[in-house]
C-alpha cells in the first residue's frame, strides 16, 4: 500500500477507534469504579452494624455479670461470705444459668484473701498492691484488663467493693476466658474475618485469629481511633489490606476490633464488577477488529476504484492519441496520393507514347523505357504506404451502428452502480421511453457517458444525488447528467474542456477526461456542453444528431 492510502488508513482507523472506544470505555470504567465504591461502602456499612451489635452483646454480658456481683456484694455480710462453703454454693448457683465465672474471692480492706473458691491456690495471697484491687477500692466497681496475676494465667476480673456499713471488702470474680473469647469470636465472619478486644495499652484482650495470643501487641494504632464506632481501611501487620470496624466498649478501656479482608467478602459482588470489565474488554476488542476490517475493506475498495479510474483515463488518452494520429495519417495520405496519381498518369502517358520500337531508335532509349517502369514501381511502392496509412486511419474512424441511447445509459450506469452504492450517492435514471434509435459509435459514446457520470458521482460525494435524463430536443437527442455537487464556477467553466485541466488532487485525474469526451462528441457530430450555474451543481448536456440507422 503506498503512502496516501496508508496515511488515510491510519487516520480513519484512529478516528473510528477514538469515536467508538472513548465513550464505551468511559462508561465502562465509571461503572467499574462505581461498582468498586458501592461494594466497599456496602461492606463497611455491614461491618459497622456488626461492630455495633457485637459491642452491645459484650457490654450486656459484662453488665449482667457486674450487676450480679454487685447485688451479691451489697446484700451479703463479710462473715457470711467468708464461709467458703457458702461461697462455693453461691458460685455454683451463679454458674447454673450460664457458665462464666471461674472463681470467687473475698478480699478484705487490707488486701488479704478472706475466702476463695476456684481451681487455683490463692488463699494466702495479698492483693494490696494489685491495680484492680486499688481501683475497686477507689471506684467501687472495676473490670480489669487481662493480666497474669499470681496464677500466671492470662485472665481478667470483675471486682466490686462492699461498703457503707463500716466494713469495706471486695468481692472479686474471674471471668472464664473461653466463654468470653467465644462471645467475641462470634463477630468473626468467613475464613479471613477476625474479631478481638484491645486494651488502652494496645494489648490483645482476646486472641486474634491472625494477630496473636492474648496480651500480645495487637498492632492497632489506638490514638487514631475516634470515640464511638468507626470504620477504616488499613493494612494489618501481615501486610494485607483490611477493613476494620472499631467500637469502644461502654466502660471506655476496651476496643472491639473486627477485621475483614475485603477480597473475601466482596468476592460475589466483585464478580459482577469483573464480568462488566470483561464484557467491556471483549466489546473493545470486537470494535477494534471491526474497525480494522472495515477500514481495510474501504481502502481496498478505494484503491480498486482509483485504479479503475486511472485505467479508464489512460484508455481515453490512448484512444484520443490514436484518433488524432489517424486523422493526421489520413491527411498526409491524401496530400501524397494526389501528386502520386499525377506522377503515375504522366509517366504512364510517356510509356504509352514511347513504344519500345520507337525507343530503340533513340540513344539510350532502353534507359528511358527502364526508368519509366521504375517510376511506376516507385509509385506503386508509395501507394502501398499511403494505403496502409489510410487503412489505419479508417480503423480509428467512428464505427457507426444502430444505438439505443437509453439502453447504453442503463448499461453504463451498471458499471458504476456499485461505486454509487458504496459512496451512498442516489442515482435516478429518468429516460424517455420514446427515444428513437440513432446511428452512432456505441463504444465511443459509452466512453463519454461513463466519463460524465463518473465525474458527477465524484462531484455529488457522500450522500449526494445524480440524475440522468434523456429526451428528444429538436433534431437532437439530449442526455443531461446533473449532480448535487458544488457546481462549477464561471471562470472554471471556461477551462474545463481544455486538455490537462483538472481540479482534482495530483494523481487523481489526468485532466484529459472532459477534453477527450468533448472531441469524441464533436467527431460523432454531436456536442458536450456545461449548462450549470455556479452554486447549483453541474449539469452536463450530451447532444447527438437524431440520425436514424440505415435499414438493414
Amino acid at each position, binding site marked *: 500500500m503506498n503512502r496516501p492510502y496508508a496515511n488515510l488508513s491510519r487516520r480513519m482507523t484512529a478516528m473510528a477507534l477514538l469515536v467508538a472506544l472513548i465513550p464505551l470505555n468511559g462508561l465502562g470504567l465509571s461503572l467499574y469504579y462505581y461498582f468498586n465504591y458501592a461494594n466497599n461502602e456496602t461492606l463497611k456499612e455491614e461491618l459497622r452494624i456488626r461492630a455495633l451489635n457485637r459491642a452491645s452483646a459484650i457490654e450486656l454480658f459484662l453488665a449482667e455479670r457486674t450487676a450480679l456481683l454487685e447485688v451479691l456484694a451489697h446484700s451479703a455480710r463479710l462473715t457470711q461470705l467468708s464461709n467458703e462453703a457458702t461461697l462455693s454454693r453461691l458460685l455454683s448457683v451463679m454458674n447454673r444459668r450460664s457458665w462464666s465465672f471461674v472463681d470467687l474471692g473475698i478480699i478484705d480492706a487490707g488486701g488479704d484473701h478472706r475466702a476463695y473458691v476456684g481451681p487455683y491456690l490463692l488463699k494466702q495471697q495479698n492483693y494490696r498492691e494489685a491495680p484492680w484491687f486499688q481501683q475497686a477500692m477507689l471506684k467501687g466497681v472495676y473490670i480489669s484488663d487481662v493480666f497474669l496475676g499470681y496464677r500466671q494465667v492470662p485472665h481478667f476480673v470483675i471486682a466490686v467493693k462492699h461498703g457503707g456499713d463500716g466494713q469495706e471488702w471486695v468481692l472479686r470474680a474471674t471471668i472464664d476466658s473461653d466463654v468470653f473469647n467465644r462471645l467475641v469470636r462470634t463477630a468473626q465472619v468467613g475464613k479471613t474475618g477476625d474479631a478481638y478486644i484491645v486494651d488502652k495499652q494496645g494489648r490483645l484482650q482476646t486472641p486474634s485469629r491472625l494477630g496473636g495470643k492474648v496480651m500480645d501487641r495487637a498492632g492497632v494504632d489506638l490514638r487514631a481511633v475516634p470515640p464511638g464506632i468507626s470504620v477504616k481501611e488499613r493494612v494489618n501487620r501481615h501486610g494485607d489490606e483490611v477493613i476494620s470496624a472499631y467500637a469502644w466498649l461502654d466502660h471506655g478501656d476496651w476496643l472491639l476490633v473486627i477485621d475483614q479482608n475485603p477480597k473475601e467478602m466482596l468476592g460475589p459482588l466483585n464478580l459482577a464488577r469483573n464480568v462488566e470489565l470483561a464484557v467491556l474488554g471483549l466489546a473493545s476488542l470486537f470494535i477494534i477488529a471491526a474497525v480494522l476490517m472495515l477500514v481495510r475493506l474501504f481502502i481496498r475498495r478505494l484503491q480498486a476504484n482509483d485504479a479503475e479510474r486511472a485505467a479508464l483515463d489512460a484508455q481515453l488518452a490512448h484512444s484520443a492519441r490514436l484518433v488524432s494520429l489517424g486523422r493526421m495519417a489520413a491527411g498526409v*495520405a491524401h496530400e501524397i*496520393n494526389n501528386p*502520386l496519381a499525377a506522377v503515375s*498518369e504522366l509517366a*504512364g502517358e510517356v510509356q504509352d507514347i514511347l513504344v519500345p520500337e520507337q525507343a530503340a531508335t533513340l540513344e539510350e532509349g532502353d534507359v528511358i523505357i527502364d526508368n519509366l517502369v521504375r517510376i511506376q514501381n516507385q509509385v506503386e511502392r508509395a501507394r502501398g504506404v499511403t494505403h496502409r496509412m489510410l487503412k489505419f486511419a479508417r480503423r480509428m474512424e467512428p464505427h*457507426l451502428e444502430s444505438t439505443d441511447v437509453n439502453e447504453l445509459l442503463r448499461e453504463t450506469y451498471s458499471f458504476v452502480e456499485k461505486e454509487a452504492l458504496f459512496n451512498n450517492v442516489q442515482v435516478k435514471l429518468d429516460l424517455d421511453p420514446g427515444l428513437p434509435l440513432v446511428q452512432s459509435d456505441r463504444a465511443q459514446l459509452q466512453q463519454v457517458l461513463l466519463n460524465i457520470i463518473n465525474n458527477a458521482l465524484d462531484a455529488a460525494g457522500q450522500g449526494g444525488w445524480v440524475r440522468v435524463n434523456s429526451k428528444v430536443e429538436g433534431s437532437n437527442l439530449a442526455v443531461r447528467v446533473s449532480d448535487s455537487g458544488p457546481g462549477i464556477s464561471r471562470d472554471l467553466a471556461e477551462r474545463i474542456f481544455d486538455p490537462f485541466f483538472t481540479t482534482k488532487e495530483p494523481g487523481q485525474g489526468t485532466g484529459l477526461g472532459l477534453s477527450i469526451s468533448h472531441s469524441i462528441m464533436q467527431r460523432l457530430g454531436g456536442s458536450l456542453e456545461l449548462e450549470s450555474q455556479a452554486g447549483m451543481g453541474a449539469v452536463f448536456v450530451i447532444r447527438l444528431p437524431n440520425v436514424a440507422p440505415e435499414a438493414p
Partner: protein
Amino acid sequence: MSAFKVLIVDDEVDFLESLVRRLKRRMVDATGVTSGEAALKYLAAQPADVVVLDVKMPGMNGIDTLREIKKSHPQVEVILLTGHASVESGVEGLTLEAFDYLIKPVKLDELIERIMEAFDRRKVVGEISSAERDAG
C-alpha cells in the same frame, strides 16, 4: 472511339489532362473538367455515360456534385476517385448510388475496367427503363 462517353472531374490539372489523353489513346471517349460546377454545366449541354469524380475539390465537392448529377441525370453512373478515404464520404457516396469508390493512385487498366463495368450497368438500367417506357 468507344460507344460511350466518359467525363473526368478533378482539380489536379496534371493528373486530369494526362488521364484524358491516355484514355483517348485507348479509344475511350473521355473529356476532362476541373470542378463540380463545370461538370454539371457539361452534362447539361451534352450527355455522358460514366463520370469519374474526385471527392475533395475546392468549391463544390464531389459528394455535392454526385447528389446533383443523380438528381438531374439519374442514369449516369458515377465512380468516386479520391486520395482521401474517409468512411463518411465512402458511405455517403455509396448511399447516393455511386457505382464505385476508388482510391488514388489507381492503375489505368483497373480504372478502364471499372468504367466498362459501370457502362454495362448503365446499359442494362437504360434498357429496362426504356422497356418500361415502351411498355408504358
